[in-house]
């Protein structure tokens, strides 16, 4: 192990171990109180009827049974899935293309990288407020654009149309997160030895072929990472939906987390919310595991 201390005699060793544990105490205490206990608590909650005020009753698997019959929950899962399936390819593709642009060194590339990455650091809430301006009827840039493209009549609100609302949130999320894929891809690409490209050039391979046969295969691991991160992030999307659409025209843009939030903190059915959270988490873990397994096979080929 790197940095492994020199072997010491028993007493000194024990004292060092004790100091080590002491140094870890703050982190472990915080972890236990604010994470492990809540996690365990949530399990218990999901099996109870747990209103914010009032009596807590054990309810067995009732919450889970309710969840299965909860149309809004399933609709939110479906919508979240739809949203994820749209956003992910965009992020990966655009991130890759941008990375191709900014991976080499040319004058000013640093500035471009910074601009492309800037939306990442402002937070989803700020991004949502910014995009609210863009969809304002009459003055918003997106509003003007959509009218120009014939996507909507001049007098209709973008956010009143479920499809357009989805389009706007997709644009927002892509704009905001593409920088991360870009940097990750860039790092992966920069690890590829230049000789490979030079050899290919000598052999007469053109740009597209070089990308296809050298870059793409060699950034598989990065691709896997970007995929996992993008999917996980999209499954947990909340801020932009709460702020921009509030669940959209008649609940048609409700994401899973938005529904869980509503159940837990607007309707105060904490037990039920806990059960829904568990289901969502199970799905998330499952999907991530599937991705990892599928991608591991790919990478090994």
């Amino acid at each position, binding site marked *: 192990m790197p940095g492994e201390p020199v072997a010491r005699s028993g007493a000194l060793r024990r004292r060092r171990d004790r100091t*080590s544990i002491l140094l870890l105490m703050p982190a472990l205490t915080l972890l236990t109180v604010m994470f492990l206990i809540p996690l365990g608590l949530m399990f218990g909650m999901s099996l109870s009827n747990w209103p914010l005020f009032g009596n807590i009753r054990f309810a067995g698997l009732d919450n889970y049974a309710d969840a299965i019959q909860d149309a809004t929950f399933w609709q939110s899962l479906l919508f979240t899935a739809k949203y994820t399936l749209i956003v992910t390819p965009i992020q990966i593709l655009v991130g890759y293309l941008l990375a191709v642009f900014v991976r080499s060194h040319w004058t000013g590339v640093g500035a471009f990288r910074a601009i492309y990455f*800037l*939306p990442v650091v*402002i937070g989803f809430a700020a991004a949502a*407020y910014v995009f609210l*301006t863009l969809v304002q009827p009459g003055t918003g840039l997106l509003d003007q654009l959509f009218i120009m493209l014939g996507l909507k009549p001049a007098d209709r609100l973008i956010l009143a149309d479920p499809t357009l609302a989805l389009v706007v949130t997709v644009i927002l999320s892509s704009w905001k997160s593409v920088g991360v894929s870009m940097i990750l891809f860039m790092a992966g690409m920069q690890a590829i030895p230049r000789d490979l490209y030079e050899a290919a050039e000598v052999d007469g391979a053109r740009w597209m072929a070089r990308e296809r046969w050298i870059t793409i295969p060699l950034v598989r691991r990065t691709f896997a990472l970007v995929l996992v991160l993008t999917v996980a992030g999209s499954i947990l999307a909340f801020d932009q939906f709460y702020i921009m659409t509030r669940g959209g025209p008649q609940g048609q843009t409700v994401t899973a987390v938005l529904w869980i939030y509503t159940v837990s903190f607007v309707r105060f059915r904490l037990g039920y919310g806990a059960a829904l959270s568990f289901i969502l*988490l199970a799905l998330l873990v499952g999907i991530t595991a599937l991705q990892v397994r599928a991608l591991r096979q790919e990478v090994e080929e």
Partner: protein
Amino acid sequence: MTASAPRGIARRTAGHALRYIIASAVALLFALPILASVSRSLVDTPGAIRPFPDVLFHLITDNYVAVVNYGAGLWTYAGNSAVVAIATAVGSAIIATLAGYALAKMPFRGSGFVFVLLLTPLMVPFQGILAPIFLILSALHLTNTLPGLILIYVVFQMPFSIFIMRNTFSSIPREIEEAAVVDGATTATMLLRVMVPLAVPGVITVVLYAFLFGWNEFLGALIVIADNANYTLPVALNNVQSGVFGRVDFGVLQAGSVVAMLPSIIVFLFLQRYYTRGLIAGSVNS
């Protein structure tokens, strides 16, 4: 050099020019939303009939003044966000430095397990366990307080922070430690005077990420804070947007957003390198 060298150079120059053109066009596209927001924030409502308000003719800063007075006042909200962000940054740095050092330089039999344990919050996203966390805060009488929120933020920044600090410490050569020990350093001295100065890049990365997280986070703040006076900026702006303080004024909302975005942008521009390092370090782990 082949006989077609001049043509080759011309083609390359054209290629370079094209690259700049495309890159700039894309950059404009990326900057557009923020620019639109800034421009909208400088315009009074009536003047907003025009699609892209002409900043030169309408440089009214009324919106910024109005924002200051909305609700409990912009400075209160920004101040709350600042307190939360800075406290999260400092708390994360301290906890992660202590833990990272212990894990990297003072391993014991259960170290590996402890490390994995400390990484588990990465697998359980905070959006998933909101309700029980709220109840715990309730039991600690910390709901609706900034410290309560800070605790949550620090816990969920911990995995990444500890990971970074552990890596940073691991890469410090053993010889330095051994030399310090030979010089009679105690653990405290070793840590504070020898190790930490060498781990400053890692600390900066941790502080940067934690600060941005604390400053930008929305859902947690929405749930934990109930009193107007304690709201952080993202949540306060939400109230502006939903008209809680009266008619929705987009100029004011954008002014508030610009104020919310500015620190993030400035901090990022100055510390870009550290942000990228953190991102890549995190990806190597996966």
